[in-house]
């Protein structure tokens, strides 16, 4: 294989990592608080706000129900407004982030749901404020579940970022489609798939390790 080809593969790999990193970090920063909000505003929870909870739930469901490929195209004007272009890795990171936010939020909500309500009750009996309950009880107790949620999200982002290749997003998916699929180059196709597999394995192992380290259940 030519060194130009190798360079192309390396560049595509870094592009994929870049897109996953950007969208992963931003969606975690937004998605985790949103997941907490979804949980604590439920009826009977520490900041019960049934109306807000209902609205947030609907918005989250809408976000989750739009197929990624459609979302990507549909928000092109928004993407352009945000990053000034609708092609390239930065442009692909926008729909990836938008899609990942409700995804993480629901997973985090689920992780919080696993917490024994008795722990919240115990904290309340000690005079904890809702804010203290979130910071000192809910988030630390759901730490393992949140790491699991982030791992699932990152892995999903790796595969979604490959889809972004279809609209000129760059990265391994883009490379696979253009060189492997369109030009019938099975070697390139196999290499991109192999790199994606290794990447997913790597993220999953790292995630599992963090979950094990952080959870003392």
């Amino acid at each position: 294989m030519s060194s130009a080809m190798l360079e192309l593969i390396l560049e595509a790999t870094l592009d994929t990592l870049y897109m996953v990193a950007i969208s992963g970090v931003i969606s975690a920063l937004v998605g985790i608080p949103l997941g907490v909000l979804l949980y604590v505003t439920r009826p009977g929870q520490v900041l019960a706000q049934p109306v807000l909870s209902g609205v947030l739930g609907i918005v989250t469901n809408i976000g989750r129900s739009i197929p990624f490929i459609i979302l990507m195209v549909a928000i092109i004007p928004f993407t352009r407004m945000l990053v000034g272009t609708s092609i390239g890795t930065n442009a692909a990171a926008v729909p990836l982030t938008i899609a990942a936010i409700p995804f993480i939020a629901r997973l985090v909500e689920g992780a919080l749901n696993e917490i024994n309500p008795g722990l919240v009750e115990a904290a309340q009996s000690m005079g904890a404020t809702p804010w203290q309950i979130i910071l000192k009880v809910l988030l630390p107790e759901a730490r393992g579940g949140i790491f699991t949620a982030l791992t699932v999200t990152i892995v999903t982002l790796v595969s979604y970022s490959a889809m972004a290749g279809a609209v000129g997003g760059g990265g391994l998916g883009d490379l696979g489609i253009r060189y492997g699929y369109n030009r019938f180059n099975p070697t390139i196709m196999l290499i991109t798939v192999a790199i994606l597999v290794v990447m997913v394995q790597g993220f999953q192992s790292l995630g599992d390790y963090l979950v094990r380290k952080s959870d003392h259940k």
Partner: protein
Amino acid sequence: MIRLDNVSKTYVLKGRQGGIARTVPALKHVDFHVPAGQIHGVIGLSGAGKSTLIRCVNLLERPTTGTVTVDGRELTGLSRQALNQARHGMGMIFQHFNLLTNRTVFANVALPLELMGMPRAEIRSRITPLLELVGLADKASQYPAQLSGGQKQRVAIARALASRPKVLLCDEATSALDPQTTGSILALLRDINHKLGLTILLITHEMEVVKSICHRVSLISDGELVEEADVGDFFTAPKTRLGREFLNDFLKLEPPRALIERLEEAPGHNTHPVVRLAFRGDAVAAPLVSRLARECGVDVSILQAKVESIQERTLGLMIAELMGPAEKTREALDYLESHDLQVEVLGHVQRDA
């Protein structure tokens, strides 16, 4: 120290029936007072309202009506913020311990102090003696998952005491523990009550708990406090039927099954009364049975007997069949009653032919 005035709690159920919201009363007009330094037990069957009652004391459940006063402060009238402040003065322990799984023993005990905003150094100096008090000084850096049930409850006790509360609420604190561990936890609670002068309110369904550490006991049934007494009195002479049921169940003093089947409610032509006798104080020491035989001329067949000591008091219980002619057995019953015995006629059995 703890005072509940006319406290009622009604739960509104989801869904309506005939256009009206369905409600379930959990507590009905409860008046209740625990003086400082006392260990007060509330006993009742499950679903009687025990949990609701204890949760109303620190307002984990807000009463529908009535007022709750702890240490002279009316909690029901406080703002959220002031209530959180007041809760620092009340510790609570739970049936399932409710320790944070991702915090070490030390950090679990530190939690209430962190919530109060205490500086780290001060927290450290306060926790070490607490862990020593509950006998877990060597477990400070372990996680709850590594501890046994009894150890977890000890951590929970240390945590509840960390803010130096005046009141400790125990919600079925020993119900998930084996009898031996229960004993050691109760001993610890008694010790704390003694050393720190802490007022303890506990709810339980176990008479053993009431018997071994409570000073006073309330009996709750269907959301109402039906009986309240000193523990010694409650165990010797419960005033309500439910109280007697609890006691009999605890003492396991029931006539043999074969006899129960033969028991008839009304005396017949040829029957003997079967009685339950409870005697305390001096009566325990007196040779009543042999006197009965001598002075009333009836024979006494003892079916079951037990002597229990309940907080420096002795309680004797006996189930016996009084054998003799009807007028003699009547005389015997009068004799027993005149000697300060509590006599309950359980029924009558046919004389063996």
